[in-house]
């Protein structure tokens, strides 16, 4: 059994499988640079991993279930009253909103500008979060089966969170706006100056290195998506300027901003469906636009 010849062939086989597998890995990594090739592979493999994700989610769901069943009647009553107050306040706001949006659309007609399209959103839960400095992303519990596509924008109630960049069968990988590899085309709400906002790898910090020298900026300025590039719908709140930096470069001003979205504490996010995505559904023009 233990002849030298025998072990020799065994180790040669080893080297062959080793090289073969490493080559496969390299090919996969290169192929992964275009999402179209590997997206279906990912989707089909994720069918295998789906039970694992469910198992990890289970304790959270059990906790939520217990939380809702065990919480006091009194708690529920006070919560109910609070919610009712909030609802009535929201209804009053809505009444005013209708008048404002009516006026807005008339003004826009007069000015011949592009109409803000109504946004359709669905809620998604966050399954996993990675906030390491090099790669910041979240994984949400909706994917290919729910019609999620690469490039779809993700919000929370306060602002832009990020963008879907990989889709699995029942989950999706969302790159955060604070990721170093991410940039959003934005404009200043007050002055309309357009620029780009880049991630820094820190959850409470965004970078604006390319503000035109002619623009007038100040701390507290709000940045909204400009809609250029087509990745994000126009007019969503992104960040607030919190510091204007001295720049050695004379051609641009620099500043840092704080994301509006609550990236540290979010549990739930909203997926935005563009009109192309909803063509298979009926259009709902009555839906309220997020201004």
């Amino acid at each position, binding site marked *: 059994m233990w002849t030298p010849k025998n072990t020799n062939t065994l*180790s040669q086989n*080893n080297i062959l*499988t*080793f090289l073969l*597998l*490493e080559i*496969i*890995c*390299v*090919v*996969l*990594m290169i*192929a*992964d*640079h275009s999402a179209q090739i*590997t997206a279906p*592979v*990912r989707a089909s*493999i*994720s069918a*295998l*991993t789906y039970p*694992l*994700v469910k*198992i*990890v989610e289970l304790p959270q769901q059990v906790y939520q279930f217990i939380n809702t069943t065990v919480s006091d009647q009194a708690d529920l009553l006070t919560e109910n009253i609070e919610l009712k107050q909030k609802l009535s306040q929201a209804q009053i706001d809505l009444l005013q909103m209708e008048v404002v949006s009516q006026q807005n659309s008339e003004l826009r007609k007069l000015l011949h500008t592009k109409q803000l399209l109504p946004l359709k959103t669905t809620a998604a839960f966050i*399954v*996993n*979060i*990675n*906030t*390491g*400095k*090099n*790669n910041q*992303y979240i*994984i949400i519990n909706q994917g290919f089966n729910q019609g999620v596509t690469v490039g779809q924008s993700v919000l929370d109630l306060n602002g832009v969170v990020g963008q879907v*960049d*990989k889709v*699995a069968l029942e989950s999706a*990988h969302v790159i955060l706006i604070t990721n*170093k*590899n991410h940039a959003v085309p934005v404009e200043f709400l007050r002055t309309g100056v357009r620029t780009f906002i880049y991630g820094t790898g820190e959850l409470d910090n965004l970078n604006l290195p390319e503000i035109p020298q002619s623009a007038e900026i100040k701390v507290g300025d709000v940045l909204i998506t400009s809609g250029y590039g087509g990745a994000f719908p126009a007019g969503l709140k992104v960040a607030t300027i919190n510091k204007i930096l001295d720049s050695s470069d004379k051609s641009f001003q620099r500043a840092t901003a704080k994301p509006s979205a609550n990236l540290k504490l979010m549990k739930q996010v909203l997926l935005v469906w563009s009109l192309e995505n909803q063509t298979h559904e009926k259009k709902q023009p009555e839906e309220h636009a997020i201004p």
Partner: protein
Amino acid sequence: MKLRSLRLIHGSIVFSLILMLIPWSGWFKIAQPYWLALVVIYWSIEAPRQMGMLTAFFYSILLDVLYGSLFGKHGFSMVAMVFLISKIHKRLKMTSFWQLTLMVGALLLNDLVIRTFIDWVSMNKEDFSINLWPILTSILIWPWFKYVLDRLNNRF
């Protein structure tokens, strides 16, 4: 060989994947041991015939899908690690406990270097921070980890 031990091998690997998926926050997330690598190291020393490079490749691809990382990244480093162990597993079985623990640390460091290199090539970023905490916690946890798996392995 035995069906039972095969079941234990795959069961423990799947369990390690679940451990890796748990969404810890803050410090726990940064210093989380690389569970999958620990299980793969253990089995490729104890049962080199069952825990081959193909198995390691398969589970690393699953990890890539679960983490949404670059396809084949974990596979590349994991296959290299199993290959290295397959070259020296007879000696590793003989070495003293502390030397083995040090070797585990060395293997994990090698693995981290490969993955960081892949990140570096694929992302074109110069400022890169390497997170060494998972290696430290993995080494600290290795003795208990090996003890538990040894017990399970002997019982089945």
